[in-house]
């Protein structure tokens, strides 16, 4: 356990090193937040209470999304490029030799990264949004820890999906296409572009059942007080269930991959 804590701390410090890049990311998140906020204002002006949100809640949703974009690695940018590169070059053989579990190792590093990006990339856009717009704030103090737990589960689901995508490099070698498809689906089905309750009919029902809703829709709903009591437990169970299922799928795929794939190199 100590080992993984060290790896997580390393992940945190590694991302904390690039301060200019973090500031640039915050700036970009904030600009996008403004653009999105105005489109939502137009939408909720025309249809108040759309999707069960009022205007302040819809605006809060926008800024939660910008705040979580980096932490949940919704547009990629996590560990997956590095892992895929190691698979492609054959360095993965060395990793498999190490006295550490491959999946837990990368999970620890990614949690460290997410922790930094939640603070470094999340707090300032949220504050900017709260200052510039009239956004909904949590009704009571206990919502904050409940929200953070939901975010944590979201990050684990996000990791588990990206781990599966990265493992595809064992077969595809060049995982650029798979990565691109994964973040496109993630961006759309997490509710980043539009809250999932606004998706019509079957598309909406499917979207709400997919793992990506754990990344933004559920944490945002927890923040907005849509899940309380048993509803909150159910939301956690949904996120946790996907996290466990996808992590197990990752282990399964990893064992298949390491058994049948010949490592690249001489």
């Amino acid at each position, binding site marked *: 356990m100590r080992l993984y804590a060290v790896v997580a701390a390393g992940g945190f410090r590694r991302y904390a090193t690039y301060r*200019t890049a973090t500031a*640039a990311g915050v700036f*970009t998140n904030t*600009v996008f937040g403004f653009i999105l906020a*105005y489109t939502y204002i*137009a*939408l909720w002006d025309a249809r108040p209470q759309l999707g069960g949100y009022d205007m302040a809640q819809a605006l809060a949703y926008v800024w939660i999304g910008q705040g979580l974009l980096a932490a949940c690695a919704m547009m990629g940018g996590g560990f997956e490029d590095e892992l895929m590169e190691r698979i492609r070059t054959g360095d993965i053989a060395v990793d498999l030799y190490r006295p550490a579990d491959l999946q837990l190792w990368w999970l620890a590093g990614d949690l460290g990264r997410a922790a930094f990006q939640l603070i470094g990339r999340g707090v300032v856009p949220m504050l900017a949004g709260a200052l510039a717009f009239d956004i909904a704030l949590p009704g009571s103090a206990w919502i904050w820890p409940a929200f953070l737990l939901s975010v944590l589960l979201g990050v684990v689901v996000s990791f588990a999906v990206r781990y599966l995508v990265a493992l595809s490099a064992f077969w595809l070698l060049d995982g650029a296409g798979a990565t691109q498809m994964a973040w496109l689906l993630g961006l759309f089905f997490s509710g980043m572009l539009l809250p999932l309750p*606004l998706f019509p009919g079957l598309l909406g029902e499917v979207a709400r059942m997919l793992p990506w809703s754990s990344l933004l829709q559920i944490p945002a709903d927890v923040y907005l007080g849509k899940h309380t009591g048993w509803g909150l437990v159910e939301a956690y169970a949904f996120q946790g269930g996907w996290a466990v299922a996808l992590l197990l799928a990752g282990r399964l795929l990893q064992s298949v991959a390491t058994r049948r794939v010949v490592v690249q190199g001489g």
Partner: protein
Amino acid sequence: MAETVAVRPGPEGSREPGGSAYFAYEERPRVLEGLRAYGLIVGMWVRSTMAYRASFVMTTFGNLAATAFDFLTIVLMFTHVDALGGYTLPEVALLYGVSATAFGLCDLLLGSMERLGRRVRDGTLDTLLVRPVPVLAQVAADRFALRRIGRILQGLAVLVYALATLDIAWTPLKVAMLPVMVISGAAVFGAVFVAGAAFQFVAQDASQVQSAFTYGGATLLQYPPTIFAKDLVRGVTFVVPLAFVSWLPTLYVLDRDYPLDLPQWVAFLAPVVAVAVGALAGLAWRAALRTYRSTGS
């Protein structure tokens, strides 16, 4: 895009004539020289892309799908409302189509400039400086990605849909405005890309700031100007004149009033604005290139 390549970048040292064959090459005006070099490098990358045809088809489709989600979002919004900021779906589609096509065109031709920050950081820009070819042409053509054509196709598809569904009172001027706004729009975005690249010399790690203006600008222009705060509209009209990409010309075609009380003929300034910002971006690029000091001890 001529005006963005028209500037003569490159350090003075790269103009030393070599042998006699080299001399003939140098006699061409720098603009043509730059364009020729750009074409050659692009041709090389296209040939290398075509070595993996299946991969090319898939990534092109991926690029097309990537931007299609943007438009799908707008369509989903319109399942709940009839108008957004007073604009109907076909009208928003026209704004979207113009902005996406112009941006796609620019992204295809100059999108590689985003990578400049990396070259400045690791010092590989040096390689480009010693070649007898304008640096701007080299940076713009670096790793030219033909798959970005997918974005243009998606933009054009939405544009065609908008033109087919809209009931526009066409005049010759409005018809002429269509190609003009797409091309000058691409040039305005091009100027933003070049200026952004110049900025990357100064703030090496901050390449993401550029995305706020390029991708952010493209997203902003997909929605009608009426939904944004007046100050924001002023900013993208007078400071970073992105409004000339789609808002002003498209509103002229649609016979709509621009939220900022500007006369209608301002829409025709789009090419002028494109040339002006292109020249400014070129100056910024020259100044930035002069400040370049390679990495290392």
